[in-house]
């Protein structure tokens, strides 16, 4: 990339991507609850309504199913909507339109249409908002053919992947961890894309591969620093896309390190790490494995309100360090 690079927050990076997309293409517009004058529950749309008007930054009524369906209908007839769920938890109200319509319409119609809709899902725990405002539901949508599902972990990727999503002819679901919104990082100016479907190696290492998603990438990198001091050399793979998953990058990494740890915030059972683990266990990387594949996922509980309990439900840096140590030392 040749463009000048600034430090932006993850939320600012997304906002900038949306602004660029709207400037470039009349068909792009935003829909969601309180994304206009309020600026969005997490201030991601911010002041975009002032720049682009209430016609292109549309406040919907509190109607997630209908709103998502309107976005699908607009996409299939030629527009390029970016639909914001206020919290990913409210996707539970719109699964019908996402899964039965957006994901399947092209297939059911034998290729007669495309559905270029982008949906954004502020996700994850850590804000004290309790069980109905803290879920990580990316595994559900990752299970649905017809959708593409991404989880950018950095401001750079948040912008580049959103622009890739808008350019994509198919429905793209973006899970954004709420605790990342304020995280800063280098973001090039102007237009660029980061490809959907490609994992990124964030740190090279020899002893152990950690595949992490979203905010867990940063926790894994933190853990890797500590582990390095102990002589454990960790490779950190940022999965970035849940569907289609870039298992090849993980396979190659595991062939090098012989050990795999999957770290994700969603509930452990049937969460994203289950797929990563299973994909490796059935690949030719299996023969390179020196130890069981370990998963660190969310606890088997709704997210609690109490902050200490809340923290304990999802993997933290010390958990990752301990799991890595155990894995490398052969402790079970």
């Amino acid at each position, binding site marked *: 990339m040749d463009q000048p690079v600034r430090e932006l927050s993850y939320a600012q990076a997304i906002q900038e991507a949306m602004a660029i997309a709207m400037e470039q293409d009349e068909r792009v517009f935003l829909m969601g609850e309180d994304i206009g004058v309020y600026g969005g529950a997490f201030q991601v749309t911010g002041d975009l309504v002032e720049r682009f008007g209430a016609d292109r930054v549309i406040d919907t009524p509190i109607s997630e199913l209908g709103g998502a369906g309107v976005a699908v*209908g607009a996409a*299939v007839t030629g527009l390029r909507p970016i639909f914001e769920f206020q919290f990913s938890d409210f996707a539970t109200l719109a699964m019908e339109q996402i899964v039965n319509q957006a994901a399947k319409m092209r297939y059911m119609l034998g290729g007669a249409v495309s559905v270029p809709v982008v949906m954004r899902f502020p996700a994850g725990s850590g804000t004290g908002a309790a069980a109905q405002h803290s879920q990580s539901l990316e595994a559900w949508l990752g299970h649905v053919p017809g959708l593409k599902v991404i989880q950018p972990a950095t401001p750079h990727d948040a912008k580049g992947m959103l622009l890739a999503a808008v350019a994509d002819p198919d429905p793209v679901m973006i899970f954004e961890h709420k605790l990342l919104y304020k995280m800063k990082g280098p973001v090039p100016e102007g237009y660029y894309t980061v490809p959907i479907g490609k994992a990124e190696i964030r740190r090279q290492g020899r002893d152990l591969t950690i595949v992490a998603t979203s905010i867990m990438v940063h926790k894994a990198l933190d853990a890797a620093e500590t582990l390095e001091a102990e002589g454990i050399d960790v490779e950190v793979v940022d999965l970035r896309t849940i569907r289609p998953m870039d298992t090849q990058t993980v396979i190659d990494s595991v062939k090098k390190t012989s050990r795999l740890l999957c770290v994700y915030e969603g509930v452990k059972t049937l969460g994203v790490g289950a797929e990563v683990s299973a994909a490796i266990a059935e690949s030719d990387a299996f023969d390179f494995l020196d130890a069981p594949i370990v998963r660190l996922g969310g606890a088997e509980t709704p997210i609690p309100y109490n902050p200490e309990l809340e923290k304990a439900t999802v993997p933290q840096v010390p958990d990752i360090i301990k799991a890595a140590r155990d894995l490398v030392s052969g402790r079970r």
Partner: protein
Amino acid sequence: MAQATAGKETGANLPFIYREYSPEQLRQALHKMYLIRRFEEGAEDSYTRGLIHGTMHLSIGQEASAMGICMPLTLDDQITSTHRGHGHCIAKGAEVAKMFAEFFGKTTGYCRGRGGSMHIADVTTGNLGANGIVGGGLPIAVGAALTAKRTKSERVVVSFFGDGANNEGAFHEALNMASIWKLPVIFVCENNGYGMSTSTARSTAVANIADRASAYAMPGVIVDGNNLSEVAEASHEAVKRARAGEGPTLIESKTYRHRGHSKSDRNRYRTKEEIEDWMTNRDPIMLYETQLQEFGVIDQAGIEGIREAVRQEIADAIEFAKTSPSPEIANLERYVYTEPL
């Protein structure tokens, strides 16, 4: 269809369509209603012979509703349809050959064999698709209408749905948004008295679905869905309103399905007498045919001509479908995503 003055008689007392359409157009409408009827009979027959699998929902008895609503629509206008959508598809302009091919699961079908009856669509004539999800098409239609408005086109969008669908949350959310944003969309409830086995009296708190229009500050119009002219007139009004930027209309078209809900219906919830009455006294094609003759738009020979033409069309279409190729297993995952060019 373009407007013209019709038939032998003229004057303000003529039913709407005789004032609005040419005799040729009126005969074409009869032709299409027959095409719908015979298409479904043909599909039913093919199903019985094992040529079509799965299930299907026949709209026999509801042809005037589909036809009347579509009369004022242009090819640029769009519709979303339902599980009971064959009539909508044909009325909007689809070819029966490609529809049969779809039902037979062939690559020449509108959905290349991937959709079948429940997803029949012809995007080229503005049909965005039948829908397996009751109420699923309503928000999509609102979205299509948003496109129409944002792109400053003249297009209107019609969303067909059943009486049963009116109790889905999607109905509520869609009508509210269409109203606040004054979108060019027409909600057409084909009230055939039952959602599967459940009568509207048992499922719906109001006597008429149109009574709910006031909750969305839009006009609610009730028409005899078996009377082509009445349906077409209501559609005209609503289309005019929509094109003028005045927003949505809810039309309730009261009709009846002659057949069971789908191919697995023991029919325990309706009396023989009720069905008999609708079939013999209120068949929309029969009513229209009689009226056309009464106003001298067609004679018995003309009717026979249409019937014969339709018979041939259906036979040819079935033949086309039968002899078309099936999809190859190797192509199973095609159309899941949009392939790069």
